[in-house]
């Protein structure tokens, strides 16, 4: 198995704000945050629900654009790129793990894991091999033909992690990855994430409201009401 150690991605959010337009009202989700993720660190964003921690994660992963402020990858401004260029950047540099797994329905585990390589134009044999490796590494090697509806929550999240890692991203963003799991699955999923982070030296950002989960990270940043809490 080719070892894909790639120096992690450094990310900087510079004075970002985010307003959501809900039924004509502008609701501030982020009121002005400046925050850096260093290359290769494992960081936990902690806060109660509605604090804005998930929004920060989405802004960092280029799923969303800040209302004001800027996002930099390796000192390069990326939030102002076109939707297409942001998609390419997400594909090459960012892996997502969501609370509700977000596997594509009526699609096998293997096909789900292959998907990022598909959009990168990797030839099908190579794609398949690489996806198999990843499924094996998350302990799902025997489930590659299963549909997501045939897998338990813990299993689905393992497939999702394999998918997030398949393209060897420099940045892995996990949004409450254990939120929908029982405690035993939760621990094994977290161990899986930390192991992957140690092996590849990628930057890992873990969003959680659970201090037990945050303990796995080397640094914790608290978010409240759209602002960072002073440590």
């Amino acid at each position, binding site marked *: 198995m080719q070892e894909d150690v790639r120096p992690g991605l450094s990310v900087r959010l510079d004075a970002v704000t985010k307003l959501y337009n809900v039924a004509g009202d502008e609701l501030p989700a982020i009121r002005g945050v400046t925050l850096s993720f260093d290359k290769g660190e494992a960081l936990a964003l902690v806060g109660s629900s509605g604090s804005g921690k998930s929004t920060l994660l*989405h802004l960092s*992963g280029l*799923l*969303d654009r800040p209302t004001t402020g800027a996002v930099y990858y390796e000192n390069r401004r990326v939030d102002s790129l076109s*939707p*297409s260029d942001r*998609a*390419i950047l*997400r*594909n*090459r540099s960012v892996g*997502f793990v*969501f609370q509700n797994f*977000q*596997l*594509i*329905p*009526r699609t096998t585990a293997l096909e789900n894991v292959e*998907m*990022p390589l*598909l*959009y*990168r*134009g990797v030839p*099908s044999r190579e794609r398949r091999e690489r996806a198999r490796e990843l499924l094996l590494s998350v302990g799902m090697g025997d489930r590659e033909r299963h549909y997501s509806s045939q897998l338990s929550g813990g299993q689905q999240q393992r497939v999702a992690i394999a*998918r997030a890692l398949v*393209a060897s991203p420099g940045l892995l963003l996990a949004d409450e990855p254990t939120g929908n799991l029982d405690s035993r699955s939760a621990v094994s999923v977290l161990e899986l994430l930390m192991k992957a982070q140690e092996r590849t030296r990628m930057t890992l950002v873990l969003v959680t409201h659970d201090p037990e989960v945050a303990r796995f990270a080397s640094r914790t940043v608290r978010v409240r009401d759209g602002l960072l809490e002073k440590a």
Partner: protein
Amino acid sequence: MFLVSLGLRALLRNPYRSILTSLGIVIGVLSVIVLVSIGLGAKALVLQSIQNLGPNLLVVIPGSVTDSGAQVGGGTDTTLTLEDAQAIRHDCPDVWNASGALRTAAQVQSSHANWSTVILGAEPNYLPVRDWHLARGGFFGAEEEASAARVAVLGHLVASRLFGLEDPLGKFIQINHSPFRVIGILSSKGQSPMGMNQDDMVVIPLSTLQSQIMGVTYVGVILAAAQSPDRVDDARREIRDLLLLRHHIPAGGRPDFDIQALSDIAKTANRLSLILTLLLALIASISLIVGGIGILNIMLVSVRERTREIGIRMAIGARPRDILVQFLTESAALSFFGGIAGGILGILSILGLRSFLGWPAPIPWEGSLLTVAGATILGILFGLYPAWRASRLDPMEALRYE
């Protein structure tokens, strides 16, 4: 390429919906092909029967009776005579042959059957003018014509109605209670372009019909054959000048006859059947468009239903273009395969029409290909908007969509 396979796989995941969605296109393409073929068949049928009548034939009919200033319709006057026919035959260099004719309806009897049919009084050269042929026996000549002989030539249908399997030649039939000797039987000719069964008639000498049955001296029509199809116009002018002179019509006066060339009728019929074909195609295209709207509808539903899937794909790196191509592939494939299926069903239906109804409908190969191509383009056009909407989704909102 993989985007195309993605689109196709999405269709296979929902086979019933895919089939039902493309059904509109199937029916649209089917009806375009079948209706166009029927139209072309009608045209072929009309042209063929006109061809049977002879492309160099001219028909001289009397003008309309003017009764107290009111016209009573064309062909009702009694101004044409046997002498007119003779004059045309002899004095028009571009006319190859001509014959006067007159018809009436009458009851005809054999010893054991009774049949109501058309009695056609004709000159001996009616046969070559119409290019008719005898199945058996002979036709009457100048002698019978001059003596108003009671001889009859039976149409194919009349012969079998009156005599069944018996041989009618030499037997007698009664027309209005006068006996006529059967001397010949015409070979079968089928329908005339005006919808008359040309086998359902009895031909007797014109003079016999005029003097012994109808008691008149006029002829109903004069048929003239030009020397060749390209001399029809010359022949028509000669006949016109001759009849104007013979009927003492002053220059600029309204002629009391009318000359029609079958080639004119062919042109009109041709134009009419073209209009018919276009009209049928237009009606069928409407069902094709309705099929396209069906695709539009299902694709809009599909995009909405799969919003979250689109969000996931975008999160892991699908560009807007990739999403657009994926959905466009789906609608294009729906309409393409629907079009192919409709084309195959259409051609099968045409073959069915041909073998069961005997309708001479041609298989419009180029038209079928064009229709399938058109249906595919239609599917792409109607798929464009849903695909564009899918590609413009915001990844974050799409991911949150329930």
